[in-house]
């Protein structure tokens, strides 16, 4: 249960009205990816960044039915910043599935602290840059966070800080290999095929291994990230979350 990703949790607790729309957890998952890639830049990961619209609470200005939502996503809203979207059939279904799932499980209320203080904690006491990277600073070993504020919702960020093992995105799982002569290398996986493994080791070097030269290889179940529960106060966690929410890739030129 603890290892289920958010979309699966959401899908488990979907009310009957949602199920009647006929969406599957797979639709919701696909929709989340499309939403983050295409919509969150304006609507925000919580769906509340456009005044008067709160996607996560089912509050739409111009639509209520799935059909109306679909039309708006396809055609945009003339005279507003909402552009027409170039989505195919399943992508539209998936996006609506995700919008409906957001409102079916409204976001937990997360306390946001002070972003400036959060940045100081992130770069100082929290030592987050030892593993993470923001813009051109920090380490390559952990997930890059330069635009994490677009990709993840505040509740997800808070949970990752307090319970890093609760949800590890597939692309962020650690990988470990042990060579025939006993050398152990753990790091970030780039590619895994039938015969070889490409990864970045904990010293930030790109490494490639041929599987027949390895004694063992596989994903590491636990996150290498420590829980900050008890290490940071709840105010400090709120500050760090507030800072992470501001990271939207804007520092890139």
């Amino acid at each position: 249960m603890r290892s289920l990703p958010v979309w699966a949790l959401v899908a488990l607790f979907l009310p009957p009205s949602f199920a009647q729309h006929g969406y599957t957890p797979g639709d919701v998952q696909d929709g989340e990816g499309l939403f983050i890639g295409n919509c969150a830049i304006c609507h925000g990961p919580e769906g509340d960044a456009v005044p008067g619209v709160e996607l996560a609470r089912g509050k739409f200005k111009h639509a209520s039915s799935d059909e109306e939502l679909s039309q708006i996503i396809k055609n945009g809203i003339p005279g507003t910043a909402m552009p027409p979207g170039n989505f195919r059939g399943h992508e539209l279904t998936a996006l609506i599935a995700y919008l409906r799932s957001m409102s079916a499980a409204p976001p937990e209320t997360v306390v946001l602290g002070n972003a400036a203080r959060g940045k100081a904690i992130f770069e100082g006491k929290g030592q987050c840059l030892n593993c993470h990277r923001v813009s051109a600073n920090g380490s390559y070993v952990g997930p890059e966070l330069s635009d994490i504020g677009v990709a993840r919702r505040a509740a997800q960020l808070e949970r990752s800080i307090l319970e890093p093992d609760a949800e590890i995105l597939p692309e962020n799982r650690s990988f470990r290999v042990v060579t025939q002569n006993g050398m152990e290398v753990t790091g970030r996986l780039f590619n895994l095929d039938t015969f070889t493994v490409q990864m970045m080791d904990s010293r930030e070097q790109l490494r490639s291994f041929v599987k027949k030269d390895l004694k063992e290889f596989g994903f590491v179940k636990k996150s290498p990230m420590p829980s900050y529960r008890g290490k940071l106060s709840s105010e400090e966690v709120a500050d760090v979350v507030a800072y992470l929410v501001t990271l939207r890739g804007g520092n890139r030129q």
Partner: protein
Amino acid sequence: MKRAILLSLCASSLFAQVTFERILGADKEPQNWMTYSGTTFSGRYSLLSQITPKNVKDLELQWIYQASSLEKFEATSLVVDGILYTVQPPNDIVALDAATGRTFWTYTYKPSPDARPCCGHINRGLAILGNVLFMGTIDAHLLAVDAKNGHLLWDTPVAKAESGYALTHAPLVVKDKVIVGTAGGEFGIRGFLAAYDVRTGKEIWRFYTVPGPGEPGHETWGGDSWKTGGASVWVTGSYDPELNLTYWGTGNPGPDWNGDPRPGDNLYSDSVVALDADTGKLKWYYQFSPHDEFDHDSVQVPVLADLEWPDRTGQKKVRKLMLWANRNGIFYVLDRATGQFLSGKPFVEVNWMNGFDEKGRPIRAAGKIPTEDGTAIYPGSEGATNWYSPAYSPRTGLFYVSAWAAYASTFFRIPVTYTEGRVYAGGWPKSYVPDGRAAENLREENEGFGAVRAIDPLTGQRRWEFKMNDVTDAGILATASDLLFSGGREGYFYALDARNGALLWKATLGGVIASGPMTYSVDGRQYVSVAAGHSLFSFALKK
């Protein structure tokens, strides 16, 4: 103990960084290929010698990387400490394991549909400094991308794609700057070279290859023709750290085939310019083809070599030279400290000029200009050679060039007016030799053929040649074991004996080779790599 660990960590991270000192000392680590032509002297010569004339027959394909693009694959890869970086056209950067060809990451760039290059959505490669890769894009942006993970670090617009500007060559890093020049010579652009801060992408200097009002050379352009003078830059230059000069070849003046709208010599088109690397100020220039009307771009790679050359008294002294087999058919030797013309000898059939005056200016042959009815000119429009990388081996003392021999075009001129973003050419060339992709070859030898020609720079004489039936767009790699690697339009990749041109090995790669081969080694094993068709191939000796 703790200190020891810390030191070793520092050492490892230092090793991973490509410093400019490492690039200048590239000969000390021949396992790597850290700049477009191998070193900043651009001889495309490697000290690796595991593959020899004796064992080259045992070369075996190790891996293929297939690009998901049907554009020509013209990039030369970089290899740093076992990681190979290349460009899948138009502008995707890929990081591969150099031993297995497997992918670490891909950076995808979508150029603007406004990009309108003359000759395909192509790219010739990357530069690296620190952990950062630099790429020019077909829509005229310069990008910095993190070599560790393929993330974009900065994106600087260099020029307007919709006016015909494009970046196609691999940038050149000099100290803390990355230098690029703009293509677009068929669109009436005003060419320039510019240097950008490697950290921020901010422009530090800009040198216009067509001088503006008040600048020396401006008088070589009649009327307002300088505004659309072309003189593009689309092949990577070289750098001499002792002189702190960076050398770049420039392209044709615009319009290409009708010189009437641009009376004068049209400086600095079809020239080599030597710029101060810190300021971009012009130190000297030499114009190969004044007032060109044959599209004889001088965008060849400037090859720098220090050779014994007789001084005025006839005494031989080591001199800083530049070796240049030009698209116009002449092999030149210049003094790279001063730009002095030292010698110029045809390396193919040439009929547009008859020797040089005492200052090294070509003496034009009478009547050899484009006309309404057409005039046959040797070499033809694609040139005696072109952007294909030549090689120079200090072991054999020979300069190697991919040549188009017995090759002519008939040049026709037509009236032309300039419209922004439209082709500005003023005519067209016609030839037996198709200038585009490979086709079935129906020509006789005297209608044009390709060859690798070995030239003795001291005499300008040809020492040997390796003939192909079809022409060649391939560069040449020379190694310290006296091997040459090259290819051609027929899709063969082959190894020649650098001393006499004997064919030692060949492989059929099934697609035009329009890139320069390079070599590297991983864990003591030497690889030779080349792009052909839409794929990158890497060979090594059988284990």
